[in-house]
């Protein structure tokens, strides 16, 4: 481990020296330098985390936190913003992986559990969190100043934001441990479905809340936007999946590059046409997995190309963690993290019981719902943009995300190992993407 620490120090020193040459650089050269630094430093910190028995992504996140604008400042705010471009591609690739893993044939026996866990654990926790926000009003000045109906609607939207999960963390840890079995499959199904549910709930909830604040509502407009986002994205995903299928079946070489290229298109098209790249890529992955025999090959191709994107994705997520917010909203944030954990863990047990699922699912799936990353951050930022009068709430949501992002993957990893589905030992050293193709 000491040699890896020395390498980290060397890479950090080099980055510091390069930045000292032109500290204001936010141009393309600075971005290339930052991308290289993040990939190499995350690689070593991931190995250090692995040797400490932590998920590798904790190491990637830690690099983002330490090198980010909040601590050492090796990655400036402008650079981190420009690196978000990689995030869109990474999210598409992660969604494509998740879709490629969702075999209807293998998931069908678990559908009841998935549906009940989504309803009880995820939607239930959303309501629980909204209630907690209302109860914490004395500690939250931005809610305290609102009248009852406004506070209720704001609390509801905050509950939705805070309930969001992270398919990225689930896929990364699952791949690192080469986990497979009912817990893993149910979890993958739940995080994917829950993501869709949260997106829909946020769109509806924020429209209702906006109407409460403004005194007028545009229900048709909201529904049209939502329908476009959902069904338009699915349509785009079907087209992308068709193109991918065509490529995989007709062309033998260079498929991993083509997959990355397609993810860039999905991410860029999604942003420009107001589609959701996550839903589009997910649909494409599901199509390839369930409408052809190319699903396995798709995962293999993704495996070859995804690790660099994951390294950058999690490091950028780490750089976006504002530890300083903990000082101001620390107490309510910790309370909300605890409420969220109780809701998700308890809700999963209850839902599995109702669905008659395997006890192991009830015991461990909830831990996979705890981590937060990209979606929660995106919704937090969207919340701050939609409700400028509640912009202080962003500090609270970011603080909750920060805690869940840093701490929850550790518990999730342990839960997967305890469930008997995650492998430990030598496999820990194997990169987290190789195995995605093997299950």
């Amino acid at each position, binding site marked *: 481990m000491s*040699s*890896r620490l020395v*390498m980290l120090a*060397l*890479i950090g020193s*080099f980055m510091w020296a*390069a930045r000292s*040459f*032109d500290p204001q*650089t936010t*141009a*393309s*050269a*600075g*971005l*290339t*330098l*930052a*991308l*290289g*630094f*993040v*990939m*190499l430093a995350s*690689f*070593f910190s991931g*190995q250090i985390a692995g040797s400490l028995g932590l998920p590798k992504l904790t190491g990637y996140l830690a690099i983002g936190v330490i090198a980010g604008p909040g601590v050492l400042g090796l990655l400036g705010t402008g650079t981190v913003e420009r690196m978000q471009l990689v995030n869109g591609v990474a999210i598409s690739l992660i969604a494509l992986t998740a879709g490629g893993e969702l075999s209807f044939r293998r998931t069908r026996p678990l559908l009841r559990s998935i549906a009940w866990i989504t309803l009880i654990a995820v939607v239930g926790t959303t309501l629980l969190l909204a209630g907690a926000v209302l109860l914490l009003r004395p500690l939250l000045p931005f809610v305290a100043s609102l009248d009852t109906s406004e506070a209720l609607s704001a609390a509801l939207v905050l509950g939705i934001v805070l309930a969001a999960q992270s398919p990225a963390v689930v896929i990364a840890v699952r791949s690192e441990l080469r986990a497979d079995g009912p817990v893993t499959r149910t979890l993958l199904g739940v995080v994917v479905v829950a993501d869709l549910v949260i997106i829909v709930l946020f769109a509806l909830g924020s429209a209702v809340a906006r109407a409460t604040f403004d005194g007028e509502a545009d229900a048709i407009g909201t529904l049209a936007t939502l329908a476009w986002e959902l069904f338009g994205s699915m349509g785009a995903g079907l087209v992308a999946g068709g*193109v991918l299928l065509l*490529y995989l079946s*007709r*062309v*033998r*070489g*260079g498929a991993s*590059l*083509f997959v990355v*290229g*397609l993810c*860039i*298109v999905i991410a*860029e*098209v999604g942003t*420009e046409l107001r589609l959701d790249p996550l839903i589009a890529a997910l649909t494409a992955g599901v199509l390839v997995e369930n409408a052809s025999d190319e699903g396995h090959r798709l995962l293999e191709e993704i*495996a*070859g*190309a*995804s*690790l*660099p994107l994951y*390294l950058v994705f999690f490091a950028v997520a780490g750089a976006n963690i504002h530890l300083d917010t903990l000082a101001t909203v620390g107490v309510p944030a910790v309370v909300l993290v605890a409420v969220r954990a109780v809701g998700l863990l308890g809700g999963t047990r209850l839902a599995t019981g109702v669905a008659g699922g395997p006890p192991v699912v009830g015991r461990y799936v909830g831990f996979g719902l705890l981590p937060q990353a990209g979606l929660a951050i995106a919704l937090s930022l969207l919340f701050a943009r939609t409700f400028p009068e509640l912009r202080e709430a962003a500090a609270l949501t970011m603080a909750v995300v920060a805690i869940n992002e840093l701490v929850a993957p550790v518990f999730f990893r342990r839960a997967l190992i305890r469930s008997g589905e995650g492998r430990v030992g030598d496999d820990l*050293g*194997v*990169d987290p*993407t*190789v195995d995605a193709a093997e299950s």
Partner: protein
Amino acid sequence: MRLVAVGALLLFATGAGAETSLALRSVLGLLALLALAFLAAHPAVQRAEELLGISQVVAAGLPFFVLGAIAHLPSVGLLTDEVLLELGPLLDIGLGWVGVLAGLQLDLRAIARWSPLTRQLSSVVTFVPFVVVGLAMGALLHVAEIPATDHRLVRDAVAFGAVGCLAAPTAAALLSASGLGADAVQVVRNVARLDDLLGVAVLAILSAFFRPTASVGWSLPPIGWLFVTLGMGLGLGLITYVALRAARSDSEGIAVLLGSVALSAGAASVFSVSPIVTCFVVGFVLANLPLPREAETRAALTRLERPVYLLFLFVAGSLWRFDLWLGWVMLPAFVVARLLARLAAVRFARWRGLLSHLPGEERPVSRALVSAPIGALSIAIVVNVQTLYPGRAVPLMVTAVVGGSLFSEALVHLLFRVFATDARPRGST
């Protein structure tokens, strides 16, 4: 059918016009690129390339060049200067990737095994074209537009010399395919290797002695910048080596390589030196240390080589100015100067007996050395010159390199077909 689809996309992109949103045009451009990538990788297209004898990426990637040129048209406006600036990181990483690959070819142990004759031959065949092409292009630039007192004249002439001296290993492959002895093939390959080294060395000197005017930061003498470039490459090469040793799978290896290339190329760009040179030194360090999983590392690097060059051709297409008359004048001058220089160099080498260790194979080897097509690294050097010294010389260089590549590619195949009997091993019918 697929070509029609790509054509339709391009026409649509062209027809979209300047009033269409940049976003939509970007999406169309991306889709067209994706479609071209699909085509380029399709087995039928690759079979067709083999049938036509197209072996050089510059020739094979001509559609990308044309697409880049179309994308830059004001009526399309896809690949504007702003977009090129946005593509900066991708270009830096591509340049670095090519640099590492070139550096990996420079195994000192292999060079130590070269015979003295091969060393002298390689030096002559590499240096003469560099000097002759540089002088010829410098003279033309001077006559046409740059006064002798302007430092850009030397800079641009040296850059022309660098791209003129590069040779692709196509001729070696053709020699090998025609059944010539391994030594003869190796000689041609070694010359191509030394060409790359000279091209990179010239780039290192150029970026150290002709600092981009916009560069800021430390104030060092030119030789200091040369040391910074080489020292940085050496240090990052060692870091990359240790990281590659720690990688435990192929995809970890790829992540490390990509990270190292991005770090090295990014640092080079921050310091306004050449990413190709810095990464070449990284590749050189890796080539000369016992690298675990060496075959996988080389394979991973090679896998991305072609797409990187295709991207460069796309960018080069956007830098091309077909309305610059000087470019059309320089193209034949460049081709003729390069050909005559290589001919003179090989004649001199034969006169000095530098090919005497290849009895009976002198003529086909000479022909291969003279007709060797322009190496793909030249297109990377053009892109690097654009990132360091954007200006009027770049479109001229694009015309010379792409036109010269097509001509030399055609020439080498023609010569090998016409003189096919010479290349057959002795005793065969």
